[in-house]
């Protein structure tokens, strides 16, 4: 049975076809909701009581002020994604759900790393930052704050590179995603 694609909001037929399968990969759901009080609580509550575990979640405005966009990622090896999307569809304030196809989706995450480096190591850290196209956004005698943007994999790769320096603190925004333009010419 095929993956629910990103072509259009999941149709009931597609949902039916998906069955209870575990896909075994990370899924990014892009959920268009009414911008009303308590909508996020309803979604978070649904996940909690059905035992679904959210990996990352971001909420932001859309070009229509009556609507908000929730992007969440969860593990398709653990959860039956079709059951998750069907339950989400039952929430009255949920308008559209897209299970974004990885190859047809651009995803980005913002991360800030506070790294313990003194003068001697600073140069090396700056080199690594450059390779990852990061930015140094704060410097003190004992530490540096680096900003990195990219896919989750890139952010994680950067983290593993700078961990040996001494990672004081890390902040990650969670993923946001958008589908690529169709039939690029």
């Amino acid at each position: 049975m095929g993956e629910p694609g990103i072509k259009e909001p999941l149709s009931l037929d597609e949902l039916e076809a998906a069955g209870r399968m575990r896909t075994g990969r990370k899924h990014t759901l892009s959920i268009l909701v009414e911008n009303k009080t308590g909508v996020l609580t309803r979604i978070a509550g649904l996940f909690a009581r059905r035992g679904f575990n959210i990996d990352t979640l971001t909420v932001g405005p859309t070009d229509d002020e009556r609507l908000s966009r929730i992007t969440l990622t969860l593990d398709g090896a653990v959860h039956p994604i079709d059951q998750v999307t069907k339950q989400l569809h039952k929430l009255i304030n949920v308008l559209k759900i897209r299970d974004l196809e990885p190859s047809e989706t651009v995803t980005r995450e913002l991360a800030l790393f506070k790294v313990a480096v003194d003068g001697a190591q600073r140069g090396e850290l700056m080199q690594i930052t450059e390779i990852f196209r990061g930015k140094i956004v704060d410097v003190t005698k004992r530490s540096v704050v680096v900003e990195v943007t990219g896919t989750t994999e890139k952010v994680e790769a950067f983290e593993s590179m700078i961990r040996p320096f001494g990672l004081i603190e890390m902040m990650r925004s969670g993923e946001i995603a958008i589908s690529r333009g169709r039939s690029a010419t």
Partner: protein
Amino acid sequence: MRAVDAIMECLKAEGVDVVFGLPGGANLPTYDAFVDGGIRHILVRHEAGGGHAAEGYAKATGRVGVALATSGPGATNLITPICDAMMDSVPVVFITGQVRTELLGTDGFQEADTIGITMPVVKHSFMIQHPDEIPQAIHDAFHIARTGRPGPVLVDIPQDLSRAEIVYEPVTATQLPGYQPTLEGNQKQIRQAAKALAAARRPVIYAGGGVVGAGASAELIALATSDRLPVTCTLMGLGAFPATHPQWLGMLGMHGTRAANYAMDEADLICAVGARFDDRVTGKLSEFAPAAKFIHIDIDPAEISKNVAAHIPIVGDAGHVLSKLVLEYRALSPDTSRLAEWWERIEQWRARHPLAYEDSADSEIKPQYMIEALYEATGGEAIITSDVGQHQMWAAQYYHFSEPRRWINSGGLGTMGFGLPAAMGAAVGCPDRLVCCIAGDGSVQMNSQELATCAQEKIPIKVFIMDNGYLGMVRQWQELFWERRYSHVEVGAHPDFVKLAEAYGATGMRLENKHTLVEDMRRAIEIEGPVVVDVKVTREENTFPMIPAGQPAREMVG
């Protein structure tokens, strides 16, 4: 006009003729509007009673029930009925008062986060933030409650907003862009289902509460009798297919008949309609109906393949889908003789394992006989409500429901104390019908205060208490699975139910003789107004047959 007067207009526009409720500080404005509102209000004695009454009304009539409560404790007392309505898909609108907006979030007097507390157990809820929103919210609430898979919807209205002046315009359109339930089933899938049914050699139709909710009983009968398809119903579906019909296998599940459970076990095709493969039906999921393929018809896509993977899923209203399925099926003119072997097998089970019990040698009343006697005394024509426990299962087994909306009980949540207030609501909704509550002596005490409501409002329910002095079902489990170590199941020290009835202004009777039971029950039914009949039955009788929890159907005992 005041927002509360607009609420009265909204309720009337939705066709509401009666509401059940209890006033308090936060809904004082609404109660002021009831004085000239032109809507019958029934004052209950506990909000839970009001909530269950609204459920009983909805289940008996098919219309949306309405229950009102004030903020804080009034609203929290509604939690059980709300959750019950969610589990059994009952269309009820709950309207709760809330503290004034300036007090919200300050732990004000009688403030509770009603929206937050009820969120996991409502189909949807509306927190009113501006008085102008009220008419639209109420219209949308009724629409959501009654359409799609029905369910409870809550509207929480802060006191100051409810007394504000608004310009009332009748609302005719919903504003629910994210809510479009699918009614029509996919025609291709329906055709596939018809083909599968026509080819099946050991088919079973497994119908649930969704058939009752959709008013699709006639379509179900039409499908079954298009051929000789055997039919079983869940606890919630009883009455959707007449229990007197030759193709009826009996209820399935934990306390279902062997014929129904064994048929599911050996079926090669199961056509589930408006049923959700609850654990009380499937038993051990991995060994449920091992030989079967599944057609699953449900209006809620999330039910499809939730517990059991469907081979032919059809999302849609049971009535729509079944009527199309009947046409498709008949067009194939399937050969009925292919089912002869299957029916032979079923007849064997029926002959070998009928529902049976050992009757007493003396005048002692066996609980099963109590139900049979009530069936006889009412001619099988009553609306029956029940609480939860042994009496509920015996009622399901021995009161042979021939029509939908005759059997009103709490299936999913299993709420003790449901039966008496639900009977009250059913009787208000169906004033021309006899409404009997079959209760346990344990569970009836959980909402017996509503006898006062029945006496005041002259609601003529007949409550038959199956009195064995025990929390019987729990006692049965302790006997069978906990080595008879009885722990806190003895409730013999209950009040004298005859005196209790009289204290509330109802009539009380006590029956102990099997030989005159039917006659005595007829007498009780003839009495005007609410009647409580305390029927003393055998103390330690077990509900059989039974699939022990978590076991497969073929392991039935008793």
